């Protein structure tokens, strides 16, 4: 079957702020910014993964989400409920210093774990991610 992940979705509270976070702070590249009426398809990708589109999906009332869903989802996003994934870095310490200098909020500095070195950060909406550097062979 050879399935490959090509698109994924992160719920964000404001697409402009999210664009600034993922592009200017994390160093991602803008992939697509297409508007159709109120709908904005805004995707970014990590610089070395041009075929992985991450959709920065606005949490707002639409055909897909009624008001009740929007209110619930906004509350969950703000609360930090969602950990949408883990990022790998060749050097977590350097990445940590740079991201911190650019205003990214971390739970704590990088720490050695059994699988490597790891830390956790949040995006501007409240979603959290792991940032990890693997031990060789793990």
């Amino acid at each position: 079957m050879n399935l490959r992940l090509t698109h994924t979705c992160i719920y964000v509270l404001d697409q402009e702020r999210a664009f600034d976070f993922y592009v200017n702070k994390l160093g991602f590249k803008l992939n697509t910014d297409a508007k159709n009426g109120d709908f904005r398809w805004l995707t970014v990708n990590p610089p070395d993964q041009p075929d992985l589109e991450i959709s920065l999906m606005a949490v707002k009332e639409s055909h897909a989400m009624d008001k009740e869903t929007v209110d619930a989802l906004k509350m969950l996003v703000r609360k930090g409920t969602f950990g949408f994934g883990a990022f790998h870095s060749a050097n977590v310490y350097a990445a940590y210093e740079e991201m911190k200098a650019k205003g990214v909020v971390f739970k704590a500095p990088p720490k050695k774990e059994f699988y490597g070195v790891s830390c956790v950060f949040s995006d501007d909406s409240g979603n959290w991610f792991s940032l990890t550097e693997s031990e060789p062979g793990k």
Partner: protein
Amino acid sequence: MDAYPKAYLYARIMKAKLFIDAHFAEPIDVEAISGEAAFSKFHFIREFRTIYGRTPREHLSLCRVERAKDLLAEGAQVLDACLAVGFRSLSSFSRSFKRATGSTPAAFREAAVERKEKGRAQPLAFVPDCFSGAHGLKPE
């Protein structure tokens, strides 16, 4: 200062990298950058490469090429993009651009501008059906 091994080292090298990121369009050189990090030139190059997987000069070239890609995608002429990002000659720009992207600046520009125009004319062409369908949108 955060308490993890060599925190001071990473902070200094990172600051030098941010200096390159901010000033790549200017005629900077490695001596100036290593001075910002308070290292000798050779020590700086070695530590930079260990941390970032490329030398400061390679990173400088990459920053310039990345910015050139943005300018070309907006429709800038090749020579204008070359000079705007800090390359001093079209030949060195073209060589660095092709090495980094696999494409000539002109070919990249043509493909990027065409993609952008298609995005304006048919925005839903770039949206997977499962997403556009969920939002009640139908391609024209």
